[in-house]
């Protein structure tokens, strides 16, 4: 789950973002505490706090004093919009690059995607 590719706090933020997008954490749902994240992922609590704070700064989570962290209303939609923007660069660009390396034309690629999404 946690790897060495980037700072752990960024990975924690992404894991929470994924849960918000997939609906595991619904709007207005309470997010586990810093200490719960630390214990679950076996990481330093300060690092877990940094990841959560980043989402608070982005307005995706909000604090209720003395109670905990909650998912902001509208957070899933905002995250989805962000991910759509990155979709071209993250997925389509490497896909077309590999396809052209293998001599797969655009039409063939489209056909393959259609077949793939049917199965």
């Amino acid at each position, binding site marked *: 789950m*946690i*790897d*060495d*590719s*980037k*700072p*752990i*706090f960024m990975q924690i933020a992404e894991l929470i973002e994924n849960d918000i997008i997939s609906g595991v954490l619904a709007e207005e749902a309470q997010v586990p505490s*810093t*200490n719960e994240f*630390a*214990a679950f*992922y*076996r*990481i*330093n*609590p*300060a*690092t877990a706090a*940094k990841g959560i704070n980043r989402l608070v700064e982005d307005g995706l989570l909000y604090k209720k004093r003395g109670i905990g962290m909650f998912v902001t209303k509208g957070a899933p939609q905002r995250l989805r919009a962000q991910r759509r923007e990155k979709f071209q*660069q993250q997925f389509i*660009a*490497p896909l077309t*690059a590999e396809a052209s390396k293998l001599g797969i034309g655009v039409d063939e690629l489209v056909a393959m995607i259609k077949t793939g999404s049917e199965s």
Partner: protein
Amino acid sequence: MPRTTAIATRELSKTYKDVKALDNVTLDLEPDRIYGLLGRNGAGKTTLMSILTGQNYADQGTAEIFGHAPFEHDPTLSRICFIRESQKYPDDFKVHQAFESAALFFENWDDDLAQELVEAFALPIKRRIKKLSRGQLSAVGVIIGMASRADITFFDEPYLGLDAVARQIFYDRLVEDFAEYPRTIVLSSHLIDEVANLLEHVIVIDKGQIVIDSDAEELRGTAVTVTGDTAKVQEFIGTAQVLHRDALGALASVTIKAKLDADQREQAKLMGLDLSPVSLQQLVVRSALSGSTAQRTEERTEARK
């Protein structure tokens, strides 16, 4: 708000005969953090911890714990717990007697926590300490170190003889207890990969000198290994600082000190190069030690796995 520094050293030096155990060590450790003190055997880790806990003295420089020199200063010493790799206990002591004396010395001692850990490690508390196995002896040290809840706790390779399951119990309980009762913990370990995610700050010492003193998160992702056709790898890395280089025929695998952005990653992909992350352990080994020594250490680490 400025906080009192937990540990402060200034130009600390210590020489044994003709060996410089500590060479001009200047450090500031903040309270309520988990520090990793890493380095090879004989690098100076234990000497540093001995001086910080008042069990040894420096030839030059100063060491202060919460603003006081620890040597023979009882109010300071009662705030420090030092668990050595081969911790000694009075010979005829039984396990529970070791805990009872620790409870008298450490005012924050938590007996419930000690009991929980005894069960977790399946430690026979009525047995004489000299009859314990190496792993059980280490468990006694781990339990005293944790249950003392001292303001500063030093663990000097506390895991000798503990199997993988017992070590995981130690790490898990340490994170849990630290989250609830924050305090300063200095963890000296060779098993860097196992403890990497627990550390907030990393200090690497080599030949008595501090070679890395950095936030663990800042270290992460500061190096990358580029693998592929030698000429293309060379073109891609340009003038970046090389930490390590492996070659296999026309293939090169080079670890460089660099933080790559998305464009650079994309470019590497287009050039047919593979990028792989570098673990904290590799980073420590490769940036702290130069050339052949680094390679030998790496081989030893591999051999142990």
